[in-house]
């Protein structure tokens, strides 16, 4: 078996070739126009676009469609490839949603580790005041890199959970569009590689938000960053379309919307946002990219570009922020809604009690998704937009508290009166609630404009959104990994190691977030390579040291989890089909899940969370004749 039987290897070759072809195309065009042959920025930009296409062609994600254009029929291949070892399917284009789910998750975890490593590097730098080993330029590149890599990682993690779980939870054989599903995943690989590559051609120093005019002036790295984000955005759009169609059209008989497992509601709300808002970040970055490449000054007020831009003036830097946040605020809910869905999904299993207020939780996800579209301006309270806009955005932002509160109280209602078990997934759910609570509660103080003035763009904001991201994504994602690990592998992880991971990571995170918020209130700005040690009566340095140590503790916990999984995936204790005594459909079938998941079409015979109701079931996998 040669290396090139792996799709990803062919994809990487395709990406390299695509990059070269794109650059060549630029050079030829320039020569034909009588210009100087080599110009780095257009060459890299066109190269990056072609490299994405090159990767997709190389990996084979477009194969079937290309065949169809020639009128050749390509039946959907099921199962591992015939002439290669079974594991190779995880490195190639595969149409099974379970394989794609694992691909998303593993790629997401890899990016999580890269982003985490970057964070550890600059966190070490911040442990003491003064610049120790990072230069200013590298520091600025690293903070943006950490942010964007983590966003990619989160989107991939969300994609992993949604793709693996949704068809299983609704008893569908696969997603509605398996080929589109594979394409959706494979967009992520060239996209994240472009992002990483950007660091080596100058990086980009405007943070993940990449506000112009700064981002319109910086190094070429920006172009690869913009196009990397564009590729990930395409993945979000096709992925969410697929999930929406799957959820709407492929549920079995009897599974009304209010009888879906609650995670499906979270995915539905998330997908609605992804399908309709992602275009805006694509557009905003594309406009900066075009402004840089050919001088169309969308965000350029008075010809700052000078000699580069023939079309000077007339643009507005604030416009970018509107476009950018119209996606990037709802994006926060894209990240956290699935995580909150995981919390709602797991609590009844480990509390042995029905989910309290199912409809309220389901509709609160929709409410958050809808209100989330109306709050983007709270990122811009001090941006210089019309002062009066602060008021409606303050009101809409405060409204988010209400559906979020409903979730918290309903979770408490679920636990109250249950018989609570403390396995590792449940511990992470509880950790998630405590951490998301910190994130949520630190929100209103940023929403009311007078208190936002001192806190805006301070480290307090860093503390706030790390708490929402950890509570809304990282903790629930880890809970999901521990919970479904036995379903994916058929083996049990080591429970003791899992608990150690939890008891290291959770207190460490509390210290981290409290420290971050603290130094922010003391007067430390975001995104600075060095801080004034006299802030907070000289307490700021000890807090930074504490945050750094906590960060390393979290990283250690994550490594422990990965080691735990790695150790037990092949040789761990057999987990059995339903170790958690869950009522959910995926636990009623063998572990690991067979190629076609359900042997017979699913029938819904009860409510999803009727724990404590004797002789009741949610679904039956038996054919009607068997009863």
């Amino acid at each position, binding site marked *: 078996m040669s290396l090139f039987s792996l799709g990803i290897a062919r994809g990487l070759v395709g990406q390299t070739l695509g990059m070269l072809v794109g650059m060549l195309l630029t050079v030829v065009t320039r020569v034909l126009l009588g210009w100087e042959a080599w110009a780095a920025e257009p060459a890299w930009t066109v190269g990056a676009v072609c490299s994405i296409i090159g990767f997709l062609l190389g990996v084979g994600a477009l194969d079937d469609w290309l065949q169809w254009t020639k009128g050749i029929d390509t039946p959907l291949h099921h199962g591992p490839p015939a002439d290669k070892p079974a594991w190779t399917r995880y490195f190639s284009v595969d149409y099974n949603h379970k394989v794609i789910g694992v691909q998303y998750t593993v790629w997401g975890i890899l990016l999580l580790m890269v982003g985490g490593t970057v964070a550890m590097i600059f966190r070490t730098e911040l442990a003491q005041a003064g610049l120790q080993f990072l230069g*200013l330029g590298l520091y*600025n590149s690293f903070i943006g890199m950490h942010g964007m890599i983590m966003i990619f990682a989160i989107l991939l993690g969300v994609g992993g959970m949604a793709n693996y779980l949704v068809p299983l939870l609704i008893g569908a054989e696969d997603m509605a569009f398996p080929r589109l599903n594979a394409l959706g995943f494979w967009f992520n690989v060239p996209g994240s590689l472009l992002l990483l590559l950007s660091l080596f051609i100058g990086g980009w*120093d*405007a943070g993940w938000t990449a*506000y112009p*005019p*700064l981002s319109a*002036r910086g190094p070429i790295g920006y172009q690869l960053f913009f196009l990397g984000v564009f590729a990930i955005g395409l993945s979000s759009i096709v992925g969410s379309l697929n999930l929406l169609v799957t959820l709407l059209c492929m549920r079995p008989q009897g599974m009304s919307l209010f009888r879906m497992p609650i995670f499906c509601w979270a995915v539905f709300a998330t997908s609605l946002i992804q399908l309709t808002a992602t275009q805006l970040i694509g557009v905003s970055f594309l406009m900066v990219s075009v402004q840089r490449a050919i001088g169309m000054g969308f965000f350029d*007020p008075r010809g*700052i570009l000078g000699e580069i831009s023939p079309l000077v003036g007339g643009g507005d*830097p*604030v416009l970018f922020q509107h476009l950018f946040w119209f996606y990037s605020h709802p994006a926060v809910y894209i990240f956290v809604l699935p995580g909150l869905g995981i919390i709602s999904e797991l609590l009844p299993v480990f509390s*042995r009690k*029905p989910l309290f*207020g199912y*409809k309220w939780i389901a509709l609160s996800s929709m409410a958050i998704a809808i209100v989330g579209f109306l709050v983007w301006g709270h990122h811009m309270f*001090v*941006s*210089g937009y019309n*002062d009066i806009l*602060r*008021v409606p955005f*303050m009101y809409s932002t405060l409204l988010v508290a209400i559906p979020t*509160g*409903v979730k918290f*109280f*309903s979770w*408490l*209602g679920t636990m109250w009166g*249950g*018989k*609570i*078990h403390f396995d590792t997934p449940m511990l992470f759910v509880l950790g998630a*609630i405590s951490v998301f*609570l*910190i994130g949520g*509660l630190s929100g209103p*103080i940023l929403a*009311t*404009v*007078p208190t936002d*003035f*001192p806190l805006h*763009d301070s480290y307090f904001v860093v503390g706030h959104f790390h708490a929402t991201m950890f509570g809304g994504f990282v903790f629930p994602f880890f809970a999901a990994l521990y919970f479904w690990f036995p379903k994916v592998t058929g083996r049990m992880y080591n429970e003791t190691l899992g608990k150690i991971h939890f008891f290291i990571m959770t207190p460490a995170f509390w210290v981290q977030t409290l*420290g971050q*918020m*603290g130094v922010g*209130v003391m007067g430390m*700005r*975001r*995104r*600075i*390579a*060095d*801080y004034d040690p006299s*802030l907070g009566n000289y307490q700021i340095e000890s807090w930074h040291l504490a945050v750094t140590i906590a960060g390393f503790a979290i990283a250690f916990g994550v490594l422990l989890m990965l080691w735990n999984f790695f150790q037990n995936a092949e040789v761990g204790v057999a987990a059995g089909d339903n170790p958690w005594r869950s009522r959910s459909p995926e636990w009623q079938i063998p572990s690991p899940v067979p190629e076609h998941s359900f042997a017979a079409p699913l029938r819904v015979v009860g*409510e999803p969370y*009727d724990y*404590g*109701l004797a002789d009741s079931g949610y679904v039956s996998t038996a054919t009607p004749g068997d009863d």
Partner: protein
Amino acid sequence: MANNRRHFVIASVLIVIFTVLVYWLLDGVLLKPEAAVVQAAPIDNLFDQHIWLIAFLFALVVVFMCYALIVFRARGDEGDGEHMHGNTTLEIAWTVIPCVFVIYFAVISTTMLFDITRPHPDEYVVNAEGRQWSWLFTYPESGAITQELVLPVDTPIRIDLTSDDVLHNFWVPEFRVKQDSVPGKTTYVRFTPNKVGEYVLRCAELCGLNHSGMLAAVRVVSRDEFDLWNSEQIAQIQE
């Protein structure tokens, strides 16, 4: 239900205790810089109200959660909990009651916002231009151009912010308020210093390589000292 009532009484007592503890912890960690403008008093007051609300809601959820975890833990049995799907009255209650808090904070914040940003008829105007990576202050009254911001105490100030390169942000932590400077337009920030002292203006919008070092000295001086300084500046210009 009688049992539940006992639980709620115990939990409520714990919530009160825990609220005070959380407030005390946050008050110890979230150390605000000294307040040096008139506007800081209402802002800090609102901040404090928020911290009380945070402490209470944190205590409410955490106490109920930990209480449930202890009282309703599975004691080695494999049975299930109470079969109960929810309670509409409760759901409505915890949807409506938070609305009251939201409205309260919305109203007082709006009033306060208009109050602290209201133009003052005799405000003293200084232009501040942010540039990578320093500040330049122009005094329209005297025509003085300085790298240090000198302001008279107890005088309403308006800073007109401009930039010729990228976004910057005017922030003196002791002044609380903050505003971006945006190329292509003039933005404003208003405050009334009420404490003589030396402060540091820190750019709070990522502006490239040396963003962390984009600082400027700010000196709030007495009216007399300011007039003296002002006449020195005028004398210098005339030389």
